[in-house]
């Protein structure tokens, strides 16, 4: 897995922001499960992106349920994924992350739960009757492009955090292994010499006993 090039998660092109939902990074202890809930109206489209940033093999179980308990999405040991769905039933949707398969590595998981479209910055803007002027259209285009840039930056920030986590882990492992191996080497060589000496010492004692 580590040798093969990892397929990069594509930066998502969201419809410019979100009306509800959240973008959070939380710690998931070992053998634990954490769930989040969001009440949604019917017909709303939601997207769940998640990525494991630090910990163990950088994987987590994830499942999404609708208000009736039906499983909409269920994957085990995923490093990152994206799931989109249009809410058919109004109610509370649940998504959970599980680290129950791991007994000693706690994970840091990032998720971005986006609901619907971005609301306008001023509430009056949604009551507009005339078409947008050229200037305003240009502003909207630039705003959407910048949103894509920000999304991209988030994506790279998460990848970098994950890679840095692996690099730091490697650094620590190299240190411990070096010290450990040196100690082991010394112990083994001294034991060898002691053991060898003890063979010859015993033989002399036995020989001495036999001769008398």
């Amino acid at each position, binding site marked *: 897995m580590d040798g093969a090039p990892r397929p990069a998660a594509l930066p998502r092109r969201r419809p410019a922001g979100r009306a509800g939902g959240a973008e959070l990074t939380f710690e998931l202890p070992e053998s634990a499960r954490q769930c*989040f809930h969001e009440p949604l109206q019917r017909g709303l489209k939601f997207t769940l992106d998640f990525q494991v940033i630090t910990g163990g093999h950088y994987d987590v179980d994830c499942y999404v349920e609708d208000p009736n308990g039906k499983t909409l999405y269920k994957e085990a040991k995923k490093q990152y994924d994206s799931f989109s769905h249009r809410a058919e039933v109004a109610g509370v949707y649940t998504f959970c992350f599980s680290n129950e398969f791991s007994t000693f590595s706690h994970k840091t998981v990032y998720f971005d739960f986006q609901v619907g479209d971005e609301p306008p910055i001023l509430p*009056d803007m949604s009551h507009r009757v005339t078409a947008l002027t050229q200037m305003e259209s240009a502003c909207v285009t630039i705003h959407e492009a910048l949103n894509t840039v920000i999304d991209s930056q988030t994506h790279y920030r998460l990848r970098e955090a994950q890679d840095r986590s692996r690099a730091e882990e490697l650094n620590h492992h190299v240190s411990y292994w070096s010290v450990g191996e040196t100690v082991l080497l010394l112990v083994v060589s001294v034991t060898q010499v002691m053991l060898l000496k003890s063979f010859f010492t015993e033989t002399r004692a036995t020989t001495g006993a036999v001769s008398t």
Partner: protein
Amino acid sequence: MAARGGLLGLVLLLLVGAVPRGLGLYFHLGETERRCFIEEIPDETMVIGNYRTQLYDKQREDYMPATPGLGMFVEVKDPDDKVILSRQYGSEGRFTFTSHTPGEHQICLHSNSTKFSLFAGGMLRVHLDIQVGEHANDYAEIAAKDKLSELQLRVRQLIEQVEQIQKEQNYQRWREERFRQTSESTNQRVLWWSIVQTLILVAIGVWQMRHLKSFFEAKKLV
């Protein structure tokens, strides 16, 4: 059946409508449980967090707004593990902080309940929303304060977004340098320890032979 569906729809509408926009997402928190969230942000970035709590009411078998006495303890630590915000808020609160060093900030929440019976074995439902950087701006307030027209406000939003992108890029450069330092350190360590271990191996071999030789000469076997 249709009446029940209609009632459920109405209840749901009230539920969704009553929740302030952005505070839809919630999770359950145990009485002594502490939930931490991490925000990796560049410096001079404002973070605004809003939360709302609900307590399970056994009589009504539903979650009701928590008693005013039950509050949440919010603690924010900067990347150097220094506490930059440590305050207790009510059952509904809003906390703000601005980062002064770039890196991973940790936002921890736990309830201030000391009486274990208060939760009655139930869970606390916490609605949480954290806005970072440009998303934390209240454009209605900015428009009113600086008296901006709609077009000017849009341009203002673009400026804020570009500033956030710039900050993030500077932070990215700083992170890349740290990453490079870690990799170079690993490279150095591997090289250094390989040499040292080879020397130790040779030295031990020499010591073993000399020690055994002198041992055997003493025992008059050689």
